[in-house]
């Protein structure tokens, strides 16, 4: 809980920042803009992020303000420009990279896993690598199997990286700012289906810090539901429908995948005795397995039923809307899972 308080800019003497209701997309742009203004060493690279403002308009207006040198269109060469980000970081800059679809993390996987994540360590801690890699992923937009993955688990097992996943506009803004200020490599997994989501976001927040773990979005006594990215909204909707049946579900946004900190979730399970996770990924090798393992280890004596995981099926995602919608975890499925454990 304390970690989350830090995210909101407060500052004892400073006036609280003004809040405005903007979209997740605009929150990203705002964060980028504010941080690039704040630190001339920051720059952003990616495909079509310059004059076009990014295929998802997540860099809208940055080129006009900061110019081609700092808002740089790259060729379609993820290994090239992600590796270049390392070179920039080692030599005094703070590069931000946009990966158009999280699925393309496969192309620069080597640069991230073998170089970026390890270079500081291999140097004995002598270099610092302030890199932010933003990747847009997720299903629901009918982009087919190769353009719909959240890639939450792909780099989950690579030590040396931080991985965060904002689920709402406020997090998209605050966590991205904190990531840009972090002197370490941070992978920010954003979700395409959330781009139009609206929410209250502070403007000009300055006292930002990387969250240290999951956040309770909605308290409840009867069950704990942990979710990430677009599944957070589904979990909240499930909690609404459960409430109508007298079941109070506690909804937790995992928000930080690496380093994983399950303690707040275990605290919750000690109160509710029931754990359900919702992850927009195939069942094997995702963060929910880690959460379940850690909760069983940390709160074993408080479990009143076996933990359950709600996930995508164990095959690629199909294109047809009729199929895609049926396979993505729904509030109904989440609520039914909770009820089955009670």
């Amino acid at each position: 809980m304390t970690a989350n308080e830090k995210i909101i800019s407060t500052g004892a003497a400073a006036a609280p920042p003004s809040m405005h209701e903007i979209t997740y997309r605009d929150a990203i742009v705002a964060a980028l803009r504010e941080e690039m203004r704040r630190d001339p060493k920051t720059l952003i690279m990616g495909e079509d992020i310059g004059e076009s403002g990014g295929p998802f308009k997540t860099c809208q207006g940055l080129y006009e303000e900061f110019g081609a040198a700092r808002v740089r269109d790259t060729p379609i060469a993820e290994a090239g420009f992600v590796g270049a980000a390392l070179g920039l970081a080692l030599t005094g800059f703070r590069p931000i990279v946009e990966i158009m679809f999280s699925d393309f993390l496969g192309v620069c996987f080597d640069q991230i896993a073998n170089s970026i994540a390890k270079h500081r360590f291999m140097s004995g801690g002598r270099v610092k690598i302030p890199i932010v890699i933003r990747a847009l992923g997720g299903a629901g937009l009918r982009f087919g199997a190769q353009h719909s993955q959240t890639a939450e688990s792909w780099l989950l097992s690579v030590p040396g990286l931080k991985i965060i996943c904002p689920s709402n506009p406020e997090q998209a803004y605050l966590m991205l700012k904190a990531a840009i200020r972090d002197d370490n490599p941070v992978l920010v997994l954003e979700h395409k289906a959330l781009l139009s989501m609206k929410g209250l976001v502070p403007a000009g927040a300055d006292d930002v810090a990387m969250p240290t773990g999951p956040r309770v979005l909605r308290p409840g006594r009867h069950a704990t539901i942990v979710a990430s990215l677009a599944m957070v909204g589904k979990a909240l909707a499930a909690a609404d429908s459960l409430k109508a049946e007298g079941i109070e579900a506690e909804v937790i946004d995992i928000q930080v995948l690496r380093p994983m900190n399950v303690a707040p979730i275990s605290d919750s399970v000690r109160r509710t005795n029931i754990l359900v996770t919702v992850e927009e990924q195939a069942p094997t090798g995702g963060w929910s397995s880690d959460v379940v393992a850690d909760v069983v280890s940390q709160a074993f004596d408080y479990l009143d039923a076996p933990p359950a995981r709600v996930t995508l099926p164990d095959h690629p995602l199909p294109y047809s809307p009729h199929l895609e919608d049926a396979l993505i975890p729904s509030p109904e499925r989440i609520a039914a899972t909770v009820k089955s454990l009670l």
Partner: protein
Amino acid sequence: MSEPPRESGSASNQAAAALSVEDRIGLFRTMTLIREFEEQVHRSYLEGLVHGTTHLCNGQEAVSAGVAKALRDDDYVSYTYRGHGQCLARGMDLEAAFAELFGRETGVCGGIGGSMHLTDIDRGLIGAFGIVGAGLPVAVGAGLSAQLAGRKQVSVCFFGDGATNIGAFHEAMNMAQVWKLPVIFVCENNLYGEFSHILHTTPYENLVVRAAGYSMQTELVDGNDVLAVYDAAAPAVSRARDGEGPTFIECKTYRHRGHSRTDPAKYRDPAEVEAWLKRDPISLYRAELGAAGLLSDAEAEGIAAELRLLVKSAADRAAAAPWPSPTQDFMARTFVQ
């Protein structure tokens, strides 16, 4: 199987001509230092002081020495797992280098990186990359950094012929040329990618063809002629400083020993090896200096002996250094806290 080129690179001799006697002898010293270091590493490996494996650059010293001579202290250098030569040419501390190979606490990376990952950011040695070709995009990033910083720094990337086949190479070359970055791509073409002869993996032997495909300026050089290397590097570096973009310098050279310590290199034709050993860059240059009256045989021997001693004592001190602690704060080595 090709004959080693006899002629020098296509660049003019003007750069080399401008070198002072001290500089020239300095080049000899640098190459000899690298050779003595590698020979000591070889002996230390046999004594069990160097662990895992290591990749020696005996025979390729002229490339490191010649290119390094053209650089400033604030230039950036990236290299590969066969990078001891580049590190020493930039003045990496001998004892710290040995200690790193021996896995000791006093190693330049605390014993944590090892032979393949010697990093010394203060000397602009931004890193050694164990994944073939992975260093090129990083070097491009450093070149972009130099371009943005506006201090006329350059970024030099050393890599082998094998790297020219991997994706990251092409992405980096393309980006460097498109953005006109101050990057010098130095390809040490020693004819073998690990155990495979170049013609088994690549359609041709002259890799400058690749660079031409990116509309990039190229130089094709006898990598065993240190002055020819310098002659190619110096103008490429000043072009880069002047904002004229990257250059690809292909240095034809040969490694005396196997790919790594465990490779006896039986896949090479002994006649080929013989021919290249006769073109040992250090012997060739020593003869050249001798012929020019700049360095007598005795002086040359003296330098070699001196450096051998220097190297040996550094190795001995490194061998006595303590082991790093398994209970140290590894997270602090991983993340800036």
